[in-house]
């Protein structure tokens, strides 16, 4: 066996490639039931070199702080979901560890479990956010038309390119942890907490992230704790790798969300009031609960002006595994809901959907979300181009004629085209435990190489190229002379979590600023020179800003034609237009949006998971249909020219494509389609078992 110290492993790309340097494997013993008191954990006799780890063996804190929640490292006393880690088995042979895990008996006095979230008991409510402006009840009472709608988005899996895991090993007194995490400093803090050591005694190195759909914000920290504890107790490098099945069953999923509206229109079709409720199933422990409800609540009105708005967003804890973030952290399902509502409102007003949006879009000065908007939502700028390239107006009219004039009203018209418009909020901080001041560092060395350091360096090669180009241009270097350091918490500053397009929206700007600072010092100070730049937190005395200020904006059109027999909706095309500040690389941005649109569409029609009766099982993974790149329809992406600072686009497709798709499907069926994804496991499925 090769041997090396963990610290010598400067870069591990994939966790599954972690060198087996006399390492131990970590297997997880899990709760067999969803809720109850642990009566006993019976571990089989383990050979020499193997050991078990329970909560009693955790050197530090038995719980870690995870984005507003306190999550047990290993369950003790009680279990809160089926699959919750209760113990670890650690040993040198993977198969023997797996065997020992399967032979370990966890006995729990099972209690009735609850998985529903739509009608919430107060004791299950873990986070809430509400606003109330104007006079909602009075406005609804006077409204010419009142429309009610309920819109649902089900749980979905992130299906990471590599199942989650972690690796850890000691380098003298420092513990090096390898984690595929969007937030290495959060993982570091969690591990330090679990080991009861100082933060500077733990180093977290980020491995390749791959496509994560924002699922790697906190769960990797829990796995990092497991690997770290195993390394600490065994004195060896430790590797924990979930199987695909375990990752599917036990790691976080998109939190199921129900959005209900009652909205009122005046005679002309203007929105006068909106009463909205958002219910989010956050599973056990509810990390991100507060974040999800706040972001959901602020997205409820979408891009529209509404003088009287009441929102109640609630996160409900259930006995499912912890649900998590998905792209947009709570805004995706709400964006779907509000854009479906827009279509329903247009229909109620007897208006074309685009015209309704144009009448109701939030203009400059709008105060629907509190502070006045500095700039209005750019519906015209974005949709002028979108409607032209998609031919939306003509197609919509034609499809409406087909719908209205079809000879057999009982069969669906079959053709649909849908529109959606909305924002991606600016790359602001997470409301809880984010970096106080996201920072980057740049160092110009004597050999004229420049090194960029940031904790969010892992990820898109396109963004890395942009950083290199900006830095090189600023300092008159060639891009080949610019390196981006591998994120290791002992070597890079805390740039916060890699979320909300932070890499483009915040870090790029800081790099530019830091390089400017370097340039001014370069010929006055001796090399090497390091400049650090941080984003200052907004002063509490500064005037409050609308959440839509500095947003990036986009619109999407989806066209489809139904299969005449099974009504499967083959999509004929997707068109996306975005206005997102100065686009640093049009080609890369267009490729990213096209890819996101394809994935977002796949999430609409496939990737079904039903957790209403309980957590996922291996059969659910088998039934989890994955869309392939061959399934992607033609996708056209364009950008509207914009001189503003670059903004993120990473969430736009995920917010817009589902709504545009559902709007198209509603027209094609001549019936509202208010739930995604479209495939449903339990609805109408015959019992073949």
């Amino acid at each position, binding site marked *: 066996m090769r041997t090396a110290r963990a610290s010598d492993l400067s870069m591990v790309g994939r966790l599954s490639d972690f060198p087996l340097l006399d390492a131990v494997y970590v297997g997880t013993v899990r709760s067999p039931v969803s809720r109850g008191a642990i009566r006993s954990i019976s571990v089989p006799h383990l050979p020499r070199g193997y050991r078990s780890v329970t909560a009693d063996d955790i050197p530090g804190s038995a719980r870690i702080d995870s984005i507003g929640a306190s999550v047990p490292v290993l369950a003790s006393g009680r279990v809160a979901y089926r699959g919750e880690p209760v113990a670890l088995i650690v040993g040198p042979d993977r198969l023997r560890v797996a065997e020992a895990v399967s032979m370990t008996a966890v006995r729990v006095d099972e209690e009735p479990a609850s998985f529903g979230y739509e009608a919430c008991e107060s004791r299950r409510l873990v986070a809430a956010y509400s606003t109330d402006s104007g006079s909602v009840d009075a406005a609804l009472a006077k409204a010419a038309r009142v429309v009610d709608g309920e819109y649902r988005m089900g749980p979905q899996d992130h299906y990471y*390119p590599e199942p989650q895991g972690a690796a850890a090993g000691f380098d003298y007194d420092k513990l090096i942890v390898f984690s595929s995490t969007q937030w290495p400093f959060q993982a570091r803090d969690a591990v330090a907490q679990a080991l009861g050591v100082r933060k500077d005694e733990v180093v977290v190195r980020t491995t390749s992230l791959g496509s994560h759909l924002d699922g790697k914000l906190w769960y990797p920290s829990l796995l990092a704790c497991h690997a770290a504890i195993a390394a600490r107790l065994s004195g060896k490098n430790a590797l924990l790798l979930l199987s695909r099945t375990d990752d599917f069953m036990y790691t976080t999923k998109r939190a199921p969300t129900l959005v209900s509206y009652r909205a009122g229109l005046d005679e002309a079709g203007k929105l006068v009031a909106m009463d909205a409720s958002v219910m989010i199933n956050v599973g056990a422990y509810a990390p991100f609960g507060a974040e999800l409800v706040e972001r959901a609540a602020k997205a409820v009105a979408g891009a529209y002006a509404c003088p009287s708005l009441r929102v109640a967003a609630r996160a409900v804890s259930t006995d499912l595994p912890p649900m998590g973030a998905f792209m947009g952290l709570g805004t995706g399902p709400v964006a779907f809901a509000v854009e479906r509502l827009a279509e329903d409102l247009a229909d109620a007003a007897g208006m074309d959907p685009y015209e309704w949006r144009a009448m109701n879009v939030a203009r400059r000065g709008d105060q629907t979300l509190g502070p006045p908007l500095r700039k209005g939502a750019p519906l015209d700028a974005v949709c002028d181009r979108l409607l032209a390239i998609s031919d939306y107006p003509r197609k919509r009219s034609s499809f409406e004629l087909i719908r209205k004039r079809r000879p057999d009203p009982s069969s669906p018209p079959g053709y649909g085209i849908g529109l959606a418009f909305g924002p991606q909020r600016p790359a602001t901080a997470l409301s809880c435990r984010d970096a106080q001041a996201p920072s980057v560092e740049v160092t110009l060395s004597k050999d004229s190489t420049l090194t960029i350091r940031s904790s969010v360096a892992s990820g898109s090669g396109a963004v890395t190229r942009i950083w290199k180009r900006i830095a090189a241009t600023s300092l008159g270097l060639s891009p080949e002379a610019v390196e981006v350091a591998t994120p290791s918490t002992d070597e890079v500053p805390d740039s916060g979590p890699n979320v909300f397009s932070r890499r483009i929206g915040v870090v790029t700007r800081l790099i530019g600023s830091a390089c400017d600072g370097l340039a001014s010092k370069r010929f006055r100070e001796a090399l090497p020179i390091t400049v650090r730049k941080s984003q200052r937190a907004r002063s509490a005395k500064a005037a409050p800003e609308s959440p839509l200020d500095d947003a990036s904006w986009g619109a999407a059109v989806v066209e489809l034609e139904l299969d005449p027999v099974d009504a499967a909706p083959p999509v004929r095309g997707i068109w996306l237009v975005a206005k997102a500040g100065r686009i640093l690389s049009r*080609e890369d941005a267009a490729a990213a949006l096209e890819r996101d649109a394809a994935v977002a569409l796949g999430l609409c029609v496939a990737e079904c998971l039903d957790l209403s009766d309980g957590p996922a099982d291996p059969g659910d993974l088998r039934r989890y249909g994955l869309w392939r790149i061959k399934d992607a329809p033609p996708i056209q992406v364009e950008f509207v020219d914009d001189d503003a600072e670059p903004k993120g686009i990473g969430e736009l497709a995920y917010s817009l494509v589902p709504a545009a798709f559902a709007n198209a499907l509603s027209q094609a069926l001549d019936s509202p389609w208010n739930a995604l994804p479209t495939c449903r496991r339990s609805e109408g499925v015959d019992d073949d078992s």
Partner: protein
Amino acid sequence: MIVEFILNGEDVSLKADPLERLSDLLRERFDLTSLMSDCREGVCGKCVVFLDGLLVNSCMVPAFKARGTEVVTYEGFKSTESFATVERSFREAGAELCGFCDSALFMAAGSLIEATVRPSEEEIMEVLSSVYCRCVTPSRALGAVKAALESSLGGKYGRAR
């Protein structure tokens, strides 16, 4: 049982359980970590290898089926002209990959270059879709393969250089 086959141009022999998956053998016994052992059901495609010239999911090949065959993994493929063509074409097409599926996608593209019949666009996407990947932009991947087909030098898979 004793399993003997040609691996990346070298004769190999090892003792294995008849049902041990070729993907596991390649990763664990030969340290060929380019392929990933993920779904183990022929769904994700990250374990593809060339088996007697055909691109297959190695997780679906038990050890006894590998006897007497010629296996080329990504490590072997990398020394071929086809790899150079594919890698360059993906790079020039801006078909960015995430680092997890690269080897499998390159092999899939390589299998198209080596095919005796020029594939249609539909066939290209069908083969690329053997690898489940959320990272690649569909049109870029298609463009990359088409460019690779245009510039390929042809050639056959055989023993790696």
